[in-house]
């Protein structure tokens, strides 16, 4: 996990945008992070933060109207995505970038596997669970049908499905949610990939089942040394399972640090507010301290720091200066980064700047209502008494 060695996956300044009729949605806007061998890296944020788009971009699985428009993704020294300037000055895909064929044959499944949130939608309801797993193994590992079948039964047993020979011939609807998620984990592990992207894998599950799955992942990770990118919104799961964490807000990574520092030496006001707003299972909290307002649309992000309209520490300078995700501290040799100008690493005059008056934000009261323009007469008055933002 040391930062000197070459990381398994390196993402630099990745940008993914969706070109919609209403405008360009900058779902992922210049994020950089890396994943080392044997590490579980968290990607945390509320819905709409861009965490799922970011993780799908890593596999080049972004669908139209979405497109990766910039940045570089390197996996084990190979370029998954990279751009360069062509002879005509236009950006074009680099020569050494893996072709779609190579992505399909070598990377997806074999090197990088995915576990999705909804296990029912990821399994085909008209084929048996075992059949689907067998086919996957057969295709990716060049085994005969019979060998693949044995391997599939073995994998089912490995992930804790009782009586795997019997259940091999059952259909997905005969499995419970937790069991289906186990099947998906079996499928992800079947080709012994080096990296697994887990996109909210436990969100749809009950707590006791969630606990079982997290324990299972812990065990398997120890056994196979697989690295994980764990996408979630649940800070409890993050604390439980991650080694390092990236906190995303509106398409950007606002804080990046080892898990302990994230909770005990929080550097970004958004992370802090997020931690303050959750009810705790282990102690009784008198009054919750919610974050004001809602996350604005990625189609028209606020100027300067994107969190400033909701930030308790916002000052005038925050409206103007867009903070990069800079190193602000070091924790046991691992950099702790935060995108907040209040830290000394940023020399933009935060201390002298005037605190922002608590102005109700325009984006709060009609987040779903993009067609209502700012000139909407209702909107003018809306600001003064506010929607979500008025608390």
């Amino acid at each position: 996990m040391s930062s000197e060695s070459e990381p398994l996956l390196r993402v630099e300044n990745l940008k993914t945008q969706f070109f919609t009729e209403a405008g360009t949605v900058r779902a992922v806007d210049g994020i950089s992070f890396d994943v080392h061998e044997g590490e579980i890296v968290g990607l945390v944020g509320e819905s709409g933060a861009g965490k799922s788009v970011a993780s799908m971009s890593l596999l080049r699985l972004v669908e139209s109207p979405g497109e990766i428009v910039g940045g570089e993704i390197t996996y084990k020294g190979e370029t998954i995505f990279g751009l360069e300037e062509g002879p005509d000055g236009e950006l074009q895909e680099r020569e050494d970038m893996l072709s779609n064929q190579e992505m399909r044959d070598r990377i997806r499944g074999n090197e990088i596997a995915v576990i999705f949130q909804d296990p029912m939608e990821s399994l085909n309801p008209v084929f048996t669970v075992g059949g689907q797993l067998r086919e996957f193994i057969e295709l990716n590992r060049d085994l005969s049908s019979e060998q693949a079948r044995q391997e599939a039964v073995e994998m089912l047993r490995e992930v804790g499905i009782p009586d795997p020979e019997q259940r091999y011939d059952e259909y997905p609807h005969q499995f419970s949610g937790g069991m289906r998620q186990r099947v998906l984990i079996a499928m992800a592990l079947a080709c012994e990939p080096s990296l697994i992207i887990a996109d909210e894998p436990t969100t749809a599950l009950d707590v006791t089942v969630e606990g079982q799955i997290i324990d299972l992942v812990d065990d398997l990770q120890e056994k196979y040394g697989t690295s994980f990118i764990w996408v979630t919104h649940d800070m409890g799961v993050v604390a439980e399972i991650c080694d390092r964490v990236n906190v995303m807000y509106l398409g950007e990574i606002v804080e990046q640090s080892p898990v302990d520092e994230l909770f005990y030496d929080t550097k970004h006001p958004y992370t802090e507010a997020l931690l303050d707003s959750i009810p705790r299972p282990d102690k009784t909290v008198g009054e919750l301290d919610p974050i004001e307002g809602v996350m604005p649309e990625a189609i028209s992000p606020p100027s300067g720091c994107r969190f400033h309209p909701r930030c308790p520490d916002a000052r005038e300078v925050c409206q103007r200066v867009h903070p990069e995700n800079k190193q602000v501290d070091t924790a046991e040799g691992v950099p702790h980064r935060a995108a907040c100008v209040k830290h000394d690493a940023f020399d933009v005059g935060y201390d002298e700047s005037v605190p922002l008056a608590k102005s109700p934000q325009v984006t709060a009261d009609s987040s779903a209502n993009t067609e209502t323009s700012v000139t909407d007469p209702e909107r003018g008055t809306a600001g003064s008494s506010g929607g979500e933002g008025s608390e």
Partner: protein
Amino acid sequence: MEVRAVSDTVQDPSRGQSEDDDLLGSEMSGEEIAHGDALLEVDGLKKYFDQDSGLLSGVSFDPDSFPPVSVGQDHVKAVDDVNFEIRRGETLGLVGESGCGKSTLGRTILRLLEPTDGSIYFKGEDLADLSGEQLRQKRSEIQMIFQDPQSSLDPRMKIGQIIEEPMRAHGMLDDEGREARAKELLEKVGLDPHHYNRHPHAFSGGQRQRVNLARALSVNPDFVVCDEPVSALDVSIQAQVLNTMEELQEEFGLTYLFIAHDLSVIRHISDRVAVMYLGNVVELAEKEELFENPQHPYTEALLDSIPVPDPRESDARGVLEGEVPSPVNPPSGCRFRTRCPRLIAPDEYEWTDEEWYHTRAFMRAVKRRTFEPMAAAEIEAEFFGGDLPRGDPGEIVQRAIELVASDRSAGDGESGGESDAEVIGDPNVDWERATDLLLESFAERSICAQERPAYEIESEHGTETHFAACHLHR
């Protein structure tokens, strides 16, 4: 407070005299229940569902029995004999995993579902006995908030109309009064009254849930059933809505039944908490007591398995094994016993704790078939450290091991016992017989399987009684 003023001005002639005061907001009139007294009492409530429907439903065919065709419905026992009370002004949290019957219970209390048996006393009147117009009238006092803020609002109605609809249904106020009250309520729940003419799609999830709140409050209910009201919302929005709900409760003197699967949310909002498992309430206590001093193994397991947002809190979690049994044919006695890590040893044998511990683990491993067939000696080593329990239990375990051992020979059947004759020669491992043998000899004889537990114990935190349905407290 202005809400009350508005409704004050208009008297509704269609309502009976005793109900006049209900219109006036949080203040309640003479016959009413004081703060802290039982507002709602659920007594022996049951809700069974028929498993299938249609002409031939309930007809089953079994060629081995006589007559081969039998008629009889299997019932899904979603809620089975539940008793509790909810006091005026409190929030009772109802928590459990999916499928435990918590939503069904909520809906049955509201009579959205017909109870199979039992009574629901609301202000002393049994809702289960009411029907037709009487029930409809009662509904103005009991309201509900649903989980999905999207589908619980009609997309073609403006939110003003949505909020006024219950008032119209109950003949409250005139048009103007309703509009004034709707706007008042919008403000109360933290929305802009000017949004009166907007459609639901123009609002975010958190705001829609606020519209739901306003609609529920429009008819001035005393009691609101909230079915997972914040679980579809992002954490930061969740906190906002929870805070609003608490403020409204205080202002209008509301009583909540708060159904959720998220223990953190339950801990935050509840005064008392009931834990449900497979149609039964297994534990009910004051919040602090329940979370700090849980007395039912299921509650303990539930609390243990929540990921705590604190990386330094890394206790080994006692993860619950297995899955929830089917509610069609739930286990006898304590319903949690098939997964309970503290299943009580049957009394007829002499056990040391360790012997019982090993035997229980082995019994469950056989039942769930979690291990590969292996030689008898290996099984003994794996589950019992080589030492089988002494006496009768040891013999039974021995027989079970022989049934599942991969090296079992035809001769084993004879040494094993009387009735094994027909198995002799069967080369396959006989999981089913081993399971039956172990369950019949041990699990079924435990007190947990024979009596339904219900104990009241003293609280360590607070003064309320602590109900725990677990024989460990016998």
